[in-house]
Structure formats: C-alpha cells, structure tokens
C-alpha cells in the first residue's frame, strides 16, 4: 500500500493505493495521527486506487471520521462498487460521507 499526501491550505487529501489490511492499516493510522493536525478542517480520502479493505482498514476510517467530526468534515471519494458494498454491509455507508 502507498499513501499519497496532498495539503492544500486546511484541506488534506490522502490517496490510498493497494490493499488496506491488517498488515498495512497501521501505516495509514500513523499518517492520520501525524498529518491530521488540529488545523485540518477538510480530510479527503481518495480510494480511486484502493484494491481491498478489511475490518482493520474500516477501523482506521472510523477513527479518522471521529477526529474530523470534532474539527471539520471528511469525505471518501472514488469508491468502487465492490468497496461500496462493504460499506453497505457494515453500515459504514451511514457513518461516512461518500462523495
């Protein structure tokens, strides 16, 4: 998995490529912990190149959403049909803003 970070003022975009699983989710969590500082008011998670997500990845999304609920908004973009179905089954489609 690779994470491409783009900061534009108070908006941070994290583009994830590859597989977000038990072995890689801690890397995303670390980036979120370090880069989503208190001045970030918009967090965009771009899943255009995400191939796979398990509950370990969902856990990091939930944590990120909780952070952004306190200081701004979070959007998950370019969600494929198969990953969208995972969000549906787990109720994450109600928690996340999928744009």
């Amino acid at each position, binding site marked *: 998995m690779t994470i491409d970070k783009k900061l534009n003022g108070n908006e941070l975009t994290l583009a994830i490529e590859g597989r977000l699983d*038990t072995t890689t989710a801690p890397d995303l969590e670390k980036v979120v912990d370090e880069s989503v500082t208190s001045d970030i008011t918009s967090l965009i998670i771009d899943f255009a190149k995400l191939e796979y997500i398990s509950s370990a990845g969902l856990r990091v999304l939930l944590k990120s959403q909780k952070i952004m609920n306190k200081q701004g908004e979070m959007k998950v973009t370019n969600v494929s049909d198969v990953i969208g179905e995972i969000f549906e089954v787990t109720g994450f489609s109600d928690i996340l803003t999928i744009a």
Partner: protein
Amino acid sequence: MNNKVYELEVAALTEKLPKVTEFVDLHLEEAGCSMKAQMQIDIAVEEIFVNIAHYAYEPGTGNAVIRMAIKDNPLRAEIAFIDSGTPYNPLEKKDPDVTLSAEDRQIGGLGIYMTKKSMDDVTYEFKDGHNILTLVKNL
C-alpha cells in the same frame, strides 16, 4: 471435474497474512473466481487467520494449516483453518450493531460479521484437539 485440495502450513503470525492471501488467490484465480467473490473471500480469510494469529496460542505461538478445496456442483471454494490452540468458536460472537453512529461504534466483531454475511456457509468444530473453521463460498 474439480476436486482439488491444496494445503499451506504457516506460523500463526499476522505478518504471514500476505502469504496466506497469495496462496488462496492463486487457487481462486485458477478456478476462474470473480473479482467480487475474491475480495469477499480474502476478507473472510484475513479475519479468520488474524483471529488465530492474535488469540489461538496466546501468549505463545503455533502454526495454522489452511486447507483449500475447489469443488463442483455447485462450483465452490471450501477453505478450512486448522489450529491446535485454545478451543474457541468465533461464530458465537454477538453481531455488532451496524446502525450506531460513529461515536458509538465498536469495531470488535465486525470482521466475523462481514465473514458471515459474505460467505455461503461458515462452520466451526473442535475435533481431536483442533479448532477447525471452514468457509464455503460458491464461485
């Protein structure tokens, strides 16, 4: 006529997950599995294997055997996870409430819930000192 059985034995450690996924994907691809079913199976395999890695031998370590069969009528994958750790049936875990808000959400139990929802059958038995959890997915 499909009736092929493959076996992989690995140390039950989370860092072995890529090896387990690679083994399963190789045989799913040979069977002509769709991308969607492959992702669902990969998720279930990850949840079960990581569960074994985290809890089966705690505080020690041990091995897990993954025995995978591709069968006909209907075409399906049967993937059994066998460990000789503490007897534990993850299917007895209570389903999480997937309607709660972000603040109230608990992530525990979500993986096994996703597994139950996406597989055609999931069974557990404790036999001869082994936990045997078997996933069945029609391809």
